[in-house]
């Protein structure tokens, strides 16, 4: 997106985060590569990338912790870094693993952070601790906190800003299963209040369960973005078949218009359909079943797994790896 286009859109409203051509290089290595990222306000947005693909670097640039090599960015309509103070006033952020002053209690750590914010921030400390599930442990020194408690305290620190935008970097790291479920509910409740959440993660399942939309990133470049449903549906679909004669089934299905490839997978046949939407995939599965039956073959089982973001993510990132290897 050109700078002029971006400014026009920001003036029109609608985006909590907007980057254009955002790039960060460390010497000869490009960590973030011309990222155009429009994050709609009032949504949970996932920034999904494998480890080392530039997630944290992007977040650090958004927060003004490190300078961008080129490109522009806006937070809540304010240009960063030019209007950084105004932009960050209503932003709560957790970049990398949350760190604290270990010799202070959880509550005292929040007091330190609140002091750097507006006066009202101090009045939000107890509410933030309560919401993060830390009210009972806030008087303990952070040195005694587990990784999960530190993660919760990091979230509480974000809430001190009464944030319109939360930027969370791998926020479920260190949480146990119950904590993860609780965290998802909390994020959704924040979004329901009209806040925007940008969540970076290397876990497609987390993004799928929490977010409304996502960008898939590989080696610093956004390679796909859209709503979760759109992203998942864009990927190739597979059918797993259990038939009497897998070798013959492969021959029968070769040449079927909906089939990209068919191969034996042990006693099963794996059929790749290519990028098809939900109804078309079901129609193709039914047609495949009819063709096999028409060829006199017994079909014991046919699985058409639901399209998931994880499949799409792995498909994209593996394809990129294959391209690099080639």
């Amino acid at each position, binding site marked *: 997106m050109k700078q002029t286009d971006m400014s026009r859109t*920001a*003036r029109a*409203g*609608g*985006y*909590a985060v907007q980057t254009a051509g955002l790039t960060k290089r460390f010497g000869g290595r490009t960590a973030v590569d011309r990222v155009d990222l429009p994050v*709609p*306000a*009032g*949504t949970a947005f996932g920034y999904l990338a494998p480890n080392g693909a530039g997630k944290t670097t992007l977040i*650090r640039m958004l*927060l*003004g*912790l*490190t300078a961008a090599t080129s490109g522009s960015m806006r937070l*809540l*309509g*304010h240009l960063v870094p030019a209007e*950084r*103070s*105004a*932009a*960050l*006033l*209503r*932003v709560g*952020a957790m*970049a*990398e693993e*949350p*760190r*604290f*002053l*270990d*010799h*202070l209690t959880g509550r*005292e*750590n929040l*007091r*330190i*952070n609140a*002091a*750097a*914010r*507006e*006066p*009202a921030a*101090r009045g939000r400390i107890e509410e933030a601790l309560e919401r993060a599930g830390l009210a009972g442990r806030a008087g303990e020194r952070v040195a005694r906190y587990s990784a999960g408690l530190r993660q919760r305290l990091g979230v509480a*620190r974000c809430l001190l*800003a009464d944030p*319109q935008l939360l930027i969370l970097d791998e926020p479920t790291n260190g949480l146990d299963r119950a904590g993860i479920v609780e965290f998802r509910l909390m994020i959704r409740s924040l979004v329901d209040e*009209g806040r*925007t959440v940008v969540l970076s993660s290397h876990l497609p399942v987390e993004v799928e369960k929490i977010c*409304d*939309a996502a960008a898939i990133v590989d080696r610093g470049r956004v390679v796909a973005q859209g*709503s979760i449903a759109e992203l998942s549906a864009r990927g190739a679909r597979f059918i797993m078949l259990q038939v009497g004669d897998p070798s013959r089934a492969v021959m029968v299905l070769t040449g079927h218009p909906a089939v990209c490839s068919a191969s034996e997978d042990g006693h099963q046949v794996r059929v790749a359909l290519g990028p098809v939407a939900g109804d078309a995939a079901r129609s193709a599965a039914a047609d495949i079943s009819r063709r096999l039956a028409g060829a006199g073959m017994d079909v014991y089982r046919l699985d058409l797994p639901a399209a998931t973001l994880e499949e799409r993510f792995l498909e994209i990132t593996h394809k990129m790896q294959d391209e690099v290897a080639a």
Partner: protein
Amino acid sequence: MSVVTIDRVSPRPRPRAGAAAGRLVSAEFLKVRKRRGLVAWTAILTGAIVVAGGVLALLHAQDPAKYGPAGGLPNLASVGYMLSLLGAVAAVLAGATMGAGDLQAGVFRDLVATGRPRLALFAARIPGALALLWPLVAVSWAAACAGSVLLAGSHPRPGLAVMAQGGAWVLLAVTVAYLIAMGLASLAGSRPVTAGILLAWQFAVTPLALALSNLGVPREGLLTAALNRTIPAGLLPGQRPDPVGPAMPVTVAAAVIAAWALVPLAAGAWRTCTRDA
């Protein structure tokens, strides 16, 4: 996907700069006063002269012929000089901690991410720790002054003006040491490195350089030489420690002290504002 339309978020007006700075200073004071080890060492170092005075008083009481009075002007001068050295050690420890503490703990980035200017975060470290150092030094000096009057014996008693000037000079020495340490720690980003370098400079390099008369007048550029030149005349009538050549004018000494304080401070401020958080 629902989209909430927003325009530029109109931030609530920032509070007055003074109030905002006050909260930051208060937060820095919280950080430093909760460091039990640092507080204990500061109390020990600054309180050592009171203990030493007590021992001298006991010795004098037991054997007045052998041990002179613990108080009086000459002893107050010695106590002032010792307090400036020990207070400077405490100041170096505090400065190194305050300058590099946030960075090493990893919380500097979270403070920067609040949008508060980095320079404001840096500046708050100065009064934040001095709020701990000054009272402890002042209490020790007050105790030393009281002892010097009450236990003067045959020695001349110090006047109020001398006591006030001496106290101000000790506070100056401690403050300068703190500013240097805080600035260098902010520059280096390491507490142990900063403390190690400064203590070695103060207790090994400086005495050696002052003792090497071949180095001549340039030795007056050393902080200790400049500070010695500014010791209140009433505290050391007719004598000066470590003379390093022709008497340096007080204005030059003041400029040397200011340079020693401001150059590391400026370097630390620059690094704080430019480093990746």
